[in-house]
């Protein structure tokens, strides 16, 4: 497959708000079920092991008119719950048999309850992820939650999740994580060969197709992109942070890149690499997943972390990516991203790393100010940063 056709397919899947691919997958065999999940993290292995399709729901972006969703939220609430409610109330999520709301913030948490009121009888589960990272405490709690989820999925018509099936799913998702890490390595090494927009589309597409298909898609992309002959540009290298839940419009990412910034690392579609490396494939798989969450998770704003941990993680990401600066792009009214930002800024200032910040919403349509800001940031790095 050509690079262009891979990206075209990824874009089609990523922004198919009718979820045609999910419908086709369900229709291909009787009794198939699909479970939606909100960003930022969901134990997709458990859903897969139940023979179900995990489906990432990232709102409607800038591709849906909000009619019913706006009537459910005050003006000071972020945008992703509006478009997600719109998707649900307009019947677009009718192909889903359940919905998971991972602990992200109070808005996503309350959205789980809104779901129960707005869609009575529909399976909606809030996934409380542990904020205690002791294996005997948070680990035990999380393992119990994973078992309860598996049990619920069986009641919804999924296959019983056995240790064997879960281990097989973990192995498949480990393969996926390896490919995603390879994609990010390529971006860091040669951002001109794997631009952020393409990586984003690939990861979004991976949230609506079976992991086996996504692994093949990533293989094809890595081969085609790695062998590409796109020219390297004289851009500055930046890390993008803050966009882990409500995602920016594609045009915003393009705007940043066109303004002279190679985005060499980001926190978009974090579910695909929330667990930093492989989950052990031996032993009790529920425990393995629980412990991986405790000990191998990324340092994200939705998760409690030790002092300096998140700042140190960001500085390390900048160093590892050979980046010259950080762009904070957070959705308006996003509590996790905006409350974290001053702490991350302090860490960057201590490390002498330049940064700039702006806010967006998923349906932002004005990109000129962002182009100017990102362009000025890139120029300032090129002109004044120490070599």
């Amino acid at each position, binding site marked *: 497959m050509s690079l262009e056709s891979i990206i075209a397919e990824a874009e089609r899947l990523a922004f198919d708000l009718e979820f045609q691919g999910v419908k086709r997958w369900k229709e291909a065999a009787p009794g198939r079920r699909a479970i939606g999940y909100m960003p930022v993290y969901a134990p997709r292995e458990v859903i897969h092991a139940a023979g179900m399709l995990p489906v990432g729901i990232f709102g409607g972006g800038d591709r849906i008119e909000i009619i019913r969703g706006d009537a459910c939220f005050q003006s000071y609430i972020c945008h992703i719950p509006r478009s997600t409610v719109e998707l649900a109330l307009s019947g677009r999520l009718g192909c889903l048999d359940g919905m998971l709301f991972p602990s992200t913030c*109070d808005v996503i948490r309350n959205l789980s309850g809104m779901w129960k009121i*707005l869609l009575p009888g529909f399976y909606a589960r809030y996934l409380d992820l542990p904020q205690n990272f002791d294996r*005997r405490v948070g680990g*035990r709690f999380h393992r119990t939650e994973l078992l309860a989820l598996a049990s619920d999925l069986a009641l919804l018509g999924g296959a019983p999740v056995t240790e064997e099936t879960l281990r097989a799913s973990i192995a498949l998702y480990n393969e996926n994580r390896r490919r995603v890490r390879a994609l990010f390595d390529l971006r860091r090494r040669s951002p001109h060969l794997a631009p952020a927009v393409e990586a984003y589309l690939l990861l979004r597409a991976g949230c609506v197709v079976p992991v086996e298909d996504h692994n093949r898609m990533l293989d094809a992309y890595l081969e085609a992109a790695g062998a590409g002959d796109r020219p390297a540009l004289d851009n500055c290298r930046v890390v993008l942070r803050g966009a882990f839940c409500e995602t920016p419009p594609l045009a915003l990412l393009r705007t940043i890149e066109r303004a002279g910034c190679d985005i060499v690392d980001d926190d978009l579609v974090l579910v695909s690499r929330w667990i930093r490396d492989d989950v052990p494939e031996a032993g009790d798989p529920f425990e393995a997943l629980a412990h991986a969450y405790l000990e191998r998770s990324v340092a994200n704003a939705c998760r409690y972390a030790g002092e300096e941990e998140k700042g140190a993680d960001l500085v390390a990401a900048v160093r590892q990516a050979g980046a010259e600066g950080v762009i904070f792009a957070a959705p308006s009214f996003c509590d996790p991203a905006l409350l974290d930002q001053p702490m991350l800024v*302090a860490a960057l200032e201590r490390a002498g790393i330049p940064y700039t910040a702006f806010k967006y919403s998923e349906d932002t349509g004005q990109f000129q100010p962002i182009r100017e800001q990102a362009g000025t940031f890139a120029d300032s790095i090129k002109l004044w940063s120490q070599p």
Partner: protein
Amino acid sequence: MTRERAAKEPSMVRQKELIAGHYRRLARAREAGEAVVYTFVPGNLTELLLSFGAAAVLPEINALQSGMRGKSADYIARAEKAGHSEDVCTYVKCDLGMSLAGNVGPTGEPIPRPDLLLLSYTGCFTFMKWFELLRQQYHCPVAMLHVPYVWNGEVTPGMIAYVVDQIRSEVLPALEKATGRRFDEADLSRRLALSARAEDDLVWVLESARNRPSPIDAYFGGVYYIGPMFSAFRGTEEGAAYYGALRGEVQERLQAGRGPITPEGPMEEERFRLVVEGPPNWTSFREFWKMFYDEGAVVVASTYTKVGGLYDTGFRHDPGAPLESLARYCLGCYTNLNLPSRVDLLERYVRDYAADGFLINSVKSCNSFSAGQLVMLRELERRTGIAGGFIESDLVDPRYFSASNIKTRLESYLQMIAQKRLEAHHPPAAAAEGRAS
């Protein structure tokens, strides 16, 4: 311009003295050799802190007290100048701003630095970020107590075990280290018994609003009544005595058939009985209250008075099972309940307290309360057949309190209730028939 002195119930005066006494205790905590522990109102482990001899600082109380004293605007501006977004919680910014301004508390006395941040992560995501921010400022230890969200309306044994495990493995060792004292379970149990006594009296007071006229305002007056219970006086003799006296005072009004005391004196006529969801605005608290009592509107039940503990559904601290009881308390705080449970509670209030209507004060700062309130409103309307009212303000940011907008909305809402009441007594069809004949 001098402000007219507000009329107060004796219990309100006593409540003010208790709170002022607590701030004096905090100011002297260092010289008294007391460890200082910052923690939050929902899920506060006050009895446990007291059993360790620690003094509690509750940042939300500091923020709301600063708001009531007109200090919050400056503190918020300081925090925003320091890089905190205009989009986020103003309690956090007010507290951070106060800290940047020298950490002088709302009563003008210094607030000591924390020896420990006890992060009771109960019903509010922002709490986690708040203490991460304070930790960066004070470089002090944090004990995280993650209280699971009661997402399906049911407290499970796994949730209780998780919270108890954390109290044992995180909170007790951190308190022992911060205070230099050993955990004394007998002292904790003794304090929990005092709590339960006070909780009985508080529930009696809140439920007195079922009477007509209600002897209390369960929102504006209610925030005074919950003050000692939600701050530093649960599990103390003073606290138990306060609630005993409060009960006596309300009993007296009830027997005399009198309504609540407003800042302008006793309320003469109860025209509307309302249930209110959401926190009050603190920067214009008295002006906000006046909008209600000027119209003869009494709040007979509110959810805000349940954020620091939900007692009127039967929970009491249990001296017989101290740690499990603390866990159950944390899990049951109002904002830790899912939206259907919150609607259930509001529906019960509307029916049990024979309310004429219900009103949501949606505050910009608090997504834990506010996200989903419009859906709650419609669900509650569907279940009760009563139209609800909706107003918007903020906790401590005066920029988001628009008096004229709120007053207009409230008056329109009350007029609608009055009109419906009139129609119920004189149905339009009957009136038309009367005209025809």
